[in-house]
Structure formats: C-alpha cells, structure tokens
C-alpha cells in the first residue's frame, strides 16, 4: 500500500464522484438542445442532490433495515469497483483485485440491493420495478460475463489493468474483430444496466413504464440522493471502463504525478464526448417495449459469443 496507490485511489473516487453528476447534467443539456429547448443548467444534478441531502427522509412503516442499508450498499459497492479498477491509472491500490469477473459480481451486489429496496416497502410499483429490473439483470448478466471472457482472451488475463495495459501496448488488439464485437456487446449491456434509452427512459413520469425509477419511488431525502448519486456513478464508471477498453490512450501507466493529471483531463474529455454522443443517440430513440428488451440483450449475448470465438480463432 504505497502513498501513490492510496492517493490515486482517492483521486479515482473523487473523479467519478464529481464527473457523475456533471455528465448527467451535460447529457440533459445536450438532449434539451437537441429538442430545441434551453434545458436545465449543466450543474442541475448537483443542485438536485444538494437539495435531497437537505430534505427530510421518510420511511415506510412496512420497511425494514434494508431500506436504509440498500442505498449504502449500492454506493459502497460502486466505490469499491472504482477503487479496484484502472480509471485514471493502471497502478491502483489493490492491483490484483481489479478482476473483471469480480467487478461484474460486485456490481451485482448493487443491483440486488436496489431490487430488494424496491420490494421492501410492500408497494405495487416497487415490486413491479424490481421484477423488471431483475429480469433485465438476469439477461444482461450473461452477456456481460461472456463479453468479459471475450475482452480477456487477447490479454490472456481477466485482470482489467492487464487488459488495459495490453491494449495500450498492442494497438492491433483494439481493431481486432473480437475486440470490436466485445465492446459493442458491452455497450448494449451498459445501456441496459444503467437504465438508459432504449431499455428504460430515465425521464419518464409514468409509473407503468418505469423500470429503475419504480424501485426508488418509496425513497426520499438522503436515501434517494444516495441511490441517484450511485446510479450516476455506476453509469460513469461503466463508461470509464468502456472508454479505457476501447480507447485507452492517455491512461497513466508510468505512475508519475504529471501523467495522472493529464490522464484525468483526457478521460474527462473522452467521457464528455461519449456522453454527448449517447445523448444525441437517445433523442432519436424511443423506449423499447419490455418484451423487446430481451431481444436486444440476446443480441448482445450473441455478439459476445462471436467475439470470444473470433478471439479464439484469430
């Protein structure tokens, strides 16, 4: 546990913590602009979170300790994956623990806890949201696991740092069909996991069409703030991983302070670019019917399988 490792881990947490609401604000702004409206300020998500932390927290009389614990588990599992993954540097604190398989299952803790949160207060909409989210998780999880294998085949390692470093050093890996297929599968899964269009509409006000929002209908105040914050953080984290896998250049691999700074700035630029693209993409999309989502995820699964096969064969 070096000083460098500890400081960079903290930096990674801070980076994602600050970028997450900002990116959401940017997405809202880009979407609004695309719809020819002015849209909320870029810092709107910060204002919303600040307000929620200041508000009273309501708790249902049917709820259990899960109600308070689930948001905390969600956010701390997110923080743990941020600590173990290479986001701005490949030389992080728990170097060996940044295993893709482990990351998938630590993220699953968050999904499970939030699904339990939905069922905790004995409401109809909460159960509905949990049921739908669990359905989507059960189908996106396999695609994610197989694309983990596909992404790891070339580097012969499931350790994320090793894969990212391998991609930095072997540019040809990035353009191999296996890598491109795996990244596209990963992107679909990210859209599903983060509840973005076309899987779920984060701006919906109609309970019957909600998936992820429906689970947190019962949360308020700081619980809601924690859940919202950690969902933004999960999305940002997944985007960081995708961008580091797809275009890793700029990530610090030398363990020097200057490079860390450069890597932060470059990653921020990359993320803003990706988020802008996603926002533009989302304005052209309508939400899929729930029973069309499995087709999308099955597509991702097939892409991941194809990626693995081409990784083995080539």
């Amino acid at each position, binding site marked *: 546990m070096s000083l460098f490792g500890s400081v960079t881990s903290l930096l990674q947490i801070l980076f994602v913590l600050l970028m997450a609401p900002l990116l959401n604000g940017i997405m809202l702004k880009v979407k609004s602009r695309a719809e020819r409206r002015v*849209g*909320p300020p870029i810092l709107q998500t910060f204002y*919303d979170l*600040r*307000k929620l932390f*200041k508000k009273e927290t*309501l708790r249902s009389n049917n709820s259990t300790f899960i109600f308070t614990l689930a948001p905390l588990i969600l956010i701390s599992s997110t923080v743990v994956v941020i600590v173990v993954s290479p986001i701005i540097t490949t030389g992080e604190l728990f170097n060996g623990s940044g295993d893709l398989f482990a990351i998938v299952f630590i993220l699953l803790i968050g999904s499970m806890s939030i699904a339990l949160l939905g069922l905790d207060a004995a409401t109809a909409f909460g159960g509905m949201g949990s049921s739908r989210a669990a359905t989507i998780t059960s189908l996106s999880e396999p695609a994610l696991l197989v694309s983990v294998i596909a992404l790891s085949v070339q580097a012969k390692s499931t350790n994320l740092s090793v894969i990212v470093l391998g991609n930095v050093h072997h540019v040809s890996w990035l353009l191999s069909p296996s890598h491109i297929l795996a990244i596209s599968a990963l992107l679909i899964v990210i859209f599903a996991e983060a509840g973005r269009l076309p899987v779920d509409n984060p701006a919906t006000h109609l309970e019957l069409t909600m998936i992820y929002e429906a689970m947190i209908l019962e949360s*308020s105040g700081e619980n809601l703030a924690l859940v919202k914050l950690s969902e933004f953080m999960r999305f940002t984290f997944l985007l960081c991983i995708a961008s580091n896998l797809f275009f890793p250049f700029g990530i610090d691999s030398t363990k020097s302070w200057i490079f860390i700074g450069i890597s932060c700035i470059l990653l921020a630029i990359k993320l803003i670019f990706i988020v802008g693209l996603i926002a533009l993409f989302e304005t052209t999309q309508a939400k899929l019917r729930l029973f069309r989502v499995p087709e999308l995820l099955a597509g991702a699964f097939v892409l991941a399988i194809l990626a693995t096969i081409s990784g083995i064969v080539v």
Partner: protein
Amino acid sequence: MKILDSFLSLFKAPLSKGISRPSNGYHFSTINKSLTLRHVDVGSCNGCEIEIASAFNPIYDAGRFGVALTASPRHADGLLVTGVVTQNMVDPLIKTFDATPNPKIVIACGDCAISGNLFKNGYGVKGPVSEVLNVDVSIMGCPPHPIDIVDTLRAIADPK
C-alpha cells in the same frame, strides 16, 4: 435565449403569487435552483393540466429553471394542486401531502384551486384547496397561462 425572453415579455401577465398563510416549513435555502413537484388533480376540468403540460414543453420550458414534475410525492418538494377539491379527493390529497418530505410547498394552480370558481358550492365539492391544506403559493387564471406558471415556479425555484 434573448429572443425567447422578448417573446415571453410580450405575454407577460401580472405576477400572481402570494403567500397566504404561514408556510408548511418551506425554506428558500433548501429548494434552491431545484424544485420537484408532484401534480395532484383534485377535480380539475383538465384545462390547467393542458397549461401545465405546455409550461414544460420546449416553448415555455420550465425545466430550464430547475423545475421538474415527478411521479412520487417522496421525491417532491411540493404539490401542484389543480381543480376544486372534490369530496372523494380530500383524503388522497391529504395522504399525498403527508407522503411528501419536509420542507414542502403547496401551490394552488388555477382559479378553481384558489377559490372554487364556478364549482364552489357544487355537488360533491369540498371547496378550494385552502380548506384542506395550507396553500403557500397561488397561480391565478382560468386556466393560468403557461407563462404565469413558469414565472411562479421560477420565482420559487430561483428566488434571486
């Protein structure tokens, strides 16, 4: 932006908000640049609903001041009540109010909600919103113009 503002100023109606009673524990410092409302229709003719929908559309865009509508009172900072309170909606209105976390604000939107308007002593009518809850802010008009709605919500969300 400027074009829109000048466009808006053409329609500028007199500001129609007023604090009627001691507030429900609503602080400007909390709801700063972020106001999330739960819309409750307690017996409206849906004229107000159309205008509220317009207030959030791309032309009037109340969203640019940090105002949003939400599905759950748990996420809300207040209620946006439209229509005259009918007997059947008294209980749900109170429940929705209870389900909103403090500090919160009650906005009566439209003349029916403020005074009962045409329906005042009608069959199955309880009365204006102020008979059931403490109303903090009222938006006049039958129905209120979207600009009035946007203006009021802006004044609440961004009071400077």
